[in-house]
């Protein structure tokens, strides 16, 4: 094992040291027993993360997972890295401080729909707008699991739960729309049960220098089982899932004559809105080619609005947006460096004395 050559560093984490040896998923498993409910979607995400991290080739001791409160937030305990299981909603704030103080770390935030979008909504949007170099995995099961089944800020309207016996009254958040509105430089969505897609999105997030928000649709088989069934059932998924790939035309649905999806997404020239067309009747002209790197988030936002909040039909998955802009802690480090250049390294004695002293002789 030790004879293997280390993987070269990723540009997303230029200061994080690389591992001396080739790693395996086993290296990332802690000795703690995993305590999620049998059948929980969280297992799949844990396995995908542990399976993909070795690819990054980062020194394991320089990886940190920080979580809030909720089922998914137990995640750090199962990772053989540094980790902190913090308090409800605050993981992005804590991770911001850690990342700002330590640019040699790869910092991951694990959170859920209640943690990130309800009690911690403020910290999430501010971490995204600052573009702190955090990889935020938002496990969205559209329910409060750990408190035993109340509706969440992503639950469909009218949701019947213990706290809403006559149906919830709230309009849900669309986490991708929210992140795009919060100036996120990287926004993606994936599904717990699609290991390959999940891993691909995690890889893209890891390679992004800046905040990355990854919404993971995750099944809670106890309190909200089947919430994403329409996206998982092979038959239904054809119509329900829009797989986005940078540079590819946005097509989905049962295949058309050319073998690609029978439906396409076009921009209505009159309103600028996106709409779905049948390739068979309207042809392929004008079908949008997905550009994850577009400067403007407008089209990505419009794509995120295609999904029906009730049925989740026409849900785009994949990387909706991935653009480069300055990273908060890099700018912060630059200022520290510039201050030293301009004023010299701080001299404590000179600081304390100031410019206006007088002397008392004994």
């Amino acid at each position, binding site marked *: 094992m030790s004879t293997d050559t280390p993987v070269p560093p990723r540009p997303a984490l230029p200061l994080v*040291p690389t591992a001396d040896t080739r790693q395996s998923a086993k290296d990332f498993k*802690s000795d*703690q027993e995993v305590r999620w409910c049998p059948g929980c979607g969280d297992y799949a995400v844990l396995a995908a993360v542990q399976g993909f991290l070795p690819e990054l080739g980062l*020194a*394991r*001791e*320089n*990886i*940190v997972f*920080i979580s809030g409160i909720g089922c998914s937030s137990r995640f*750090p*305990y199962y*990772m*053989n890295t*540094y*980790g*902190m*299981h*913090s*308090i409800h909603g*605050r993981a992005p*704030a*804590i991770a*911001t*401080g*850690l*990342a*700002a*103080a*330590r640019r*040699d*770390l790869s910092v991951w935030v694990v959170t859920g729909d209640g943690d990130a979008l309800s009690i911690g909504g*403020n*910290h999430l949007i*501010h971490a995204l707008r600052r573009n702190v170099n955090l990889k935020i995995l938002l496990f969205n099961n559209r329910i409060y699991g750990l408190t035993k089944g109340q509706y969440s800020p992503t639950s469909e309207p009218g949701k019947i739960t213990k706290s809403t016996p006559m149906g919830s009254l709230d309009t849900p958040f669309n986490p991708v729309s929210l992140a795009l509105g919060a100036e996120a430089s990287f926004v993606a969505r994936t599904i717990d049960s699609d290991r390959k897609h999940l891993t691909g999105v995690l890889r893209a997030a890891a390679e992004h220098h800046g905040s990355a928000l990854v919404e993971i649709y995750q099944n809670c088989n106890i309190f909200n089982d089947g919430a994403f069934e329409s996206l998982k059932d092979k038959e239904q998924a054809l119509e329900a899932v829009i797989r986005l790939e940078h540079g590819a035309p946005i097509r989905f649905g049962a295949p058309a004559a050319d073998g690609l999806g029978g439906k396409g997404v076009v921009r209505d020239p009159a309103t600028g809105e996106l709409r779905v067309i049948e390739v068979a009747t309207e042809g392929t002209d004008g079908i949008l080619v997905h550009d994850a790197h577009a400067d403007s988030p407008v089209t990505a936002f419009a794509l995120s609005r295609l999904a029906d909040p009730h049925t989740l039909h026409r849900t785009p998955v994949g990387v909706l947006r991935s653009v480069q802009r300055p990273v908060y802690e890099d700018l*912060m480090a630059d*200022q*520290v460096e*510039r*201050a*030293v250049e*301009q*004023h*010299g*390294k*701080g001299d*404590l*004695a000179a*600081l*304390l*004395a*100031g*410019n*206006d*002293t*007088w*002397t*008392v*002789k*004994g």
Partner: protein
Amino acid sequence: MTTEVDADQGSRDHGGAKDVRRLDRVIIRFAGDSGDGMQLTGDRFTSETASLGNDLSTLPNFPAEIRAPAGTLPGVSSFQLHFADHDILTPGDAPNVLVAMNPAALKANLPDLPRGAELIVNTDEFGSRALAKVGYESNPLEDGSLEGYALHKVPLTTLTVEALKGFDLTRKDAGRSKNMFALGLLSWMYHRPTEGTEAFLRSKFAKRPEIAEANITAFRAGWNFGETTEEFAVSYEVAPAASAFPAGTYRNISGNLALAYGLIAAAQRADLPLFLGSYPITPASDILHELSRHKNFGVRTFQAEDEIAGIGAALGAAFGGALGGTTTSGPGVALKSETIGLAVSLELPLLIVDIQRGGPSTGLPTKTEQADLLQAMYGRNGEAPVPIIAPATPGDCFAAAVDAARIALTYRTPVFLLSDGYLANGSEPWRVPEADLLPDLRVRFATGPNHTLADGTEVFWPYKRDETTLARPWAVPGTPGLEHRIGGIEKQDGTGNISYDPANHELMVRTRQAKTDGIEVPDVVVDDPEGRARVLVLGWGSTFGPITAAVRRIRRAGGHIAQTHLRHLNPFPANLGEVLRSYDRVVLPEMNLGQLATLLRARYLVDVRSFTQVNGMPFKAEQLETAFKEAVDDVH
């Protein structure tokens, strides 16, 4: 302030034509509209006074509104300065001189002015509308109601505008410099050195030299007015307070500035980067401002989206091996409480600076109070002990910050630093400490395994404690082999793994308490010169000045009274109970409804007598003197 001064800009001389009297101390209060620049005027007079070597103490007092309605009583802003040729402890009870820039300032401050005091009034602002606005039915400058005072009627605005007529300024703009005219006049009256103010104005308005020159011209015109007009027949000298101070280099410093420097010094002495996560809040924001200017010390300041994120980021940085801190006031502490509890559970070093202000809720943002003590002591869910330190004077904020860092780093715990609005904005001469002689705060991060399992395997246990301090190891991310997980769920002793075991929780709660209880703090020292006192006066925090001043008055009058002051409020000094029990009467002045008294009564079963005040202002020495005298008379 620069120290280089051109010859023609040096200190101005008194012509010698007028009578000069020596005073041992003076209390001046500048009062005006909140837009009149009274705080700046006070700051400048303070700097002039500090550079002359007087002892001094200041009390800025201003409304929460940035520009309260002009000319109204709520809009009055004032700055009181007490300076002397000997050591003094308070900004003074009652001013000897009041400068009132308008009728509102006169009306709001006159009740504090003793008969015979000098009263300098800007007559230009005493028009009928301005008088009516504050309810004066007749002009107090003319109706004889001010006969008991040495009234100087000076048209400050007119004189300033006249002095600036050579400048290309509107009458209104020229009139804005009237505070500098007043400063010039007072600087003449009290023989203050002037070069510092002139250099300050040049530097402040470096980009607008014409404004700098206009202000300097107004300042000099004020001085010359005093020198030439017959209105002011006498000027006063207050000699430097050389004998009051131990030898050393001194500067003037405010509490918030001293506290900011204390944090930088602590980080330097710990050889750790300082990370401040804060949300702006009065009266703490100046610490954030100050620290943001010192990035060349490796200081990172993070203006967070809210109070919770401020402390969260600081805690995250602490996990990463920085000296993390957050600065706030009472309402911010309330929001941070859950994170403070997490820090208690994680056992990471963290500094929580609370510049207390009047409460509850928004309360009195710009006024002082000591009513967050119980919040700091108990304001968390569960048993979550946090050490508490309170500075006694503005300059002491420096040493208290360094001491708070010592405790946080040594014991791996969050620490409360309880300052208040009075200390934050007040200032005093401060002996500049020798940087090299400050405590060595260097820490040792964990670098390898600290435990051997039964099978001989060497492992790292994040909650295996130091036997003396009970502190757990600080293992920062990036250290190979020490990967571990911590969190707010109860942890198994030693391993730090999640544990719901009843006996383990009992052990962990008691251990965290024992760690806090075992923090080394110095014994209280009682000041009882003749050893005959039967009454002990105890204080904490910013009441030190007025308490000590009152104690001196009692002793000067032949009374016997002992005094001690608490810096450490959690844990209490080991000898405190014994000290309290050895007096017939313990009197405890607090700017709350008796919070420390409650703690002491519960802890030591001593019948501590509270003397409390919650009017947003510091105690006056005179009222404490009366209260102490009653106690002394009572037990004899």
